[in-house]
């Protein structure tokens, strides 16, 4: 049995941020995550490091928090933030009154905002709809959520934090009414692990109520599903927002070679049972297409959705519910931290750890806003020159990932999971969505004898099913054609399965 001071459940931005903060304040801790890092809303989000602009009219407090955090993250997390800047564009017919409220809100929240002409906006982003009336420039940025989690975890690892990914918490151990530990199941082996701690932090986002109920408590939340689509091209170098009250399909965020557009907002009951509807995809494309007309005929490589953990509110339209977060003291040794945004994860962690320090009667102050994230030097990635030198051994042609790189990740992380390789190398993130290279990555693992051939077949099967869930809602045009090719390869040429 493992003993520690604080157990964190959930490896999204919030959980990883808490681990880092605890590490910097010298508190022994252990983080347990059922998937890989960023498996929940964190990995399914837009990756917009908000300037706060989006909330200045509806939620000035959240807007102010966002801007502060935006400044901090640009300082401490250079390597996972791209300082793209952002535009709020006003299309013909969009309310002028909202524009006034927007500019006033920015001023009050201290967010730099500059109204520019459509000509200037088109100079900045040539793909913009030439019919826009004007644009307002704000300091929005693009952030890589997975990297963000990894860098936060790095600090924890450097300071003896214990990390268990692919471990699902199935039980909260209690004694005399107090939570004293958890039981978690290793998702690969089925083995059970018991971890004891003085405090438990429930940072499971949309799953928070499920975890709370294991301890006999409740976290009142509204779950709002949001869907996003990814394009095959980077159609804009700046974040593009629609200058109107938050609504469907009004944000486009560039990220590496692609763009993410979304989102929608539909209330759901169970975060594990979410589907995308083709109407959502169509809405996003046509709304994004109003800001960047190319959207209507660009190739969409994937659609996915995440669930926003929002605090319970009486308002019906989930777009309007406050993005503020809350820390709930269940009075039994467990705290739940819910709500918020990716942008404010650090602040949420700070407040959470302040509460923990107080309960331990310790004084060390939070330093997460001053110290740059650990491990950024190594994150310059795998330089292009190196990739090109390995050219004849490229296993993923879309993202130029070489065999050496795959072998390195396998050796360094000891991973047995092809998803982990994908997150760490971008293997399979291009137009074919892993259709070709996953067969290769598993073949490499197989040849290295780190997995049994049976496992590799199971993983290949699992991967193709998961991949299909992502691309299923974006199948038309070239993407459908490519999908048919991949289907013929696995089911025809490789006879992977036989029809019943």
């Amino acid at each position, binding site marked *: 049995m493992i003993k520690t001071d604080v157990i964190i459940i959930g490896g999204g931005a919030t959980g990883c941020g808490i681990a880092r903060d605890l590490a910097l304040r010298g508190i022994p801790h252990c983080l347990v995550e059922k998937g890989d890092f960023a498996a929940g809303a964190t990995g399914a989000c837009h990756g917009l490091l908000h300037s706060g602009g989006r909330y200045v009219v509806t939620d000035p407090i959240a807007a102010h928090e966002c801007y502060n955090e935006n400044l901090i993250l640009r300082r401490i997390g250079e390597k996972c933030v791209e300082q793209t800047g952002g535009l709020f564009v006003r299309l013909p017919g969009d309310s002028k009154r909202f524009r006034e409220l927007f500019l006033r809100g920015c001023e009050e929240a201290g967010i730099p905002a500059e109204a520019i002409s459509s000509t200037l906006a088109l100079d900045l982003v040539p793909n913009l709809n030439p019919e826009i009336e004007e644009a307002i420039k704000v300091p929005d940025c693009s952030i890589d959520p997975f990297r963000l989690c990894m860098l936060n975890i790095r600090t924890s690892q450097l300071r003896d934090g214990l990390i268990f990914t692919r471990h699902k918490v199935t039980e909260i151990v209690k004694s005399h009414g107090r939570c004293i530990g958890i039981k978690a199941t290793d998702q690969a082996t089925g083995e059970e692990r018991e971890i004891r701690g003085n405090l438990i932090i429930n940072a499971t986002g949309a799953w928070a109520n499920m975890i709370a109920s294991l301890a006999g408590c409740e976290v009142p939340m509204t779950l709002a599903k949001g869907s996003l689509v990814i394009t095959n091209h980077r159609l804009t170098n700046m974040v593009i927002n629609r200058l109107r009250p938050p609504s469907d399909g009004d944000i486009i965020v560039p990220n590496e070679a692609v763009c993410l557009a979304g989102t929608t907002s539909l209330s759901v009951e169970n975060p594990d049972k979410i589907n995308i509807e083709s109407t959502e995809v169509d809405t996003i494309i046509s709304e994004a297409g109003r800001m960047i007309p190319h959207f209507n005929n660009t190739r969409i490589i994937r659609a996915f959705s995440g669930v926003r953990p929002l605090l319970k509110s009486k308002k019906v339209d989930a777009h309007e519910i406050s993005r503020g977060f809350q820390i709930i003291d269940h009075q039994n040794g467990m705290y739940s931290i819910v709500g918020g945004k990716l942008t404010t994860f650090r602040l949420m962690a700070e407040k959470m750890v302040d509460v923990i320090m107080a309960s331990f009667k310790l004084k060390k102050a939070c330093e997460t806003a001053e110290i740059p994230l650990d491990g950024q030097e190594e994150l310059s990635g795998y330089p292009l020159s190196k990739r090109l030198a390995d050219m004849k051994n*490229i296993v993923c042609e879309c993202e130029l990932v070489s065999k050496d790189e795959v072998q390195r990740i396998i050796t360094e992380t000891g991973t047995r999971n092809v998803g982990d390789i994908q997150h760490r190398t971008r293997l399979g993130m291009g137009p074919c969505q892993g259709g070709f290279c996953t067969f290769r990555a598993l073949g490499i693992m197989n040849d290295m004898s780190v997995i049994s051939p049976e496992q590799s077949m199971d993983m290949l*099967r699992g991967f193709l099913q998961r991949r299909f869930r992502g691309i*299923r809602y974006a*199948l038309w045009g070239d993407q459908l054609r490519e999908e*048919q090719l991949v289907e*013929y390869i696995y*089911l025809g*040429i490789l006879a992977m399965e*036989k029809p019943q």
Partner: protein
Amino acid sequence: MSVTEYDVIILGAGVAGLTAGTFLAGRGFKVALVTSGEPTACLSTGCIDVCSRNHNPLVGIKELPPAHPYHLVPGETIIESLNNFQAAMSDIGIPYVGTEKENRLVLSALGTFKTSCLVPSTMAAAPQDTKASIHIVSFAGLKDFYPSYIISRRNNSKTSVYDAGVSSTMGIASHFEDKDFLKSFIIWLKEQNIDEDTIAFPAVLGLESAVEIVKTISTSVGKPVFEIPTIPPSMPGRRLFNALKDNFRKKGGNIYWGWPVIGVEKSGKIIEAVTTESKGRPNSLNGKAFILATGSFVGGGLTATREAIIENVFHLPVHVPGPRDTWFENDYFSFNHAIGRAGIKVDSFLRPTETPLENIFVCGGILADTEILKYGCGHGLALATAHVAAKSCMEYIR
């Protein structure tokens, strides 16, 4: 604009288009074949799937759902098309083994069995059960071939790796065409002291001379040798395509290569010409009849948009299985994705229905209700329907 007159214009250089073209050219018709590019045959294993659902493909065909286009092909035409194919391939030097009455098993690169009907002779020695031990030779750096996948299903099998100095499928295949390379390879192979019953290779044993190369290796080591089809680029698929193409040319057919059809000239119910784009200059090909063999989505005959499915050349009405949400099932491996039924509905002459046009005949993968993956009927259906389309065309012109 240059104008050329033909009896029949064929669109698409796949198994269907080339077969229909060869049939007509062989009977004295003036035939032109226009294609935008390579067919799906080049991506395929080269094996001719006729119908994989029953051990006897002909029985399997009878059991297909009523809407399946195989039911539009008379039984004797199916057999005729397979016989013609086998005879032509033997003539050209890439013989196929198998009969229309019996399916065979082809060992896949995952170690599973693909069920097919006529297979290239280079795959003939593949074991038909899981017992026989195999020695798998693989090549350094070949990124789409991992013997461990196969060995997992056949634990009495072994592997060894040869460094050919190149690592692409094409590169290794062209090395094998070189006599000296082959000689030193055989010396190496003998040094491996192979105990297993048979020797397997990824399908890289040469471009044109594969049959010869397999024989040479097999005689030198005194063991049966066979090829395992790879994912594209596929050498056996390319050999099939080259053979069909050469055969068509030998019969006097004309190929307009790399010329996508971009326009159609109509007069009432008759298509008079298709316009193609070549080197920036439009080119008009006049014909009395037209055979549409542009394949399905992968081949390029059909394109799906968010709202509809379009036939790209004549804009013929396409049978769409339902709204976009229903094109795919949630289970990737269901084999029941409705999209497999999309295509052109035809009458018994393989003339498209729901259009007044009279002189178009449709064959191959672009037909509706084929469900090629589910029923394992890719090239076989292309051969059979090409024969029907060609015959209908002949009748129409007379």
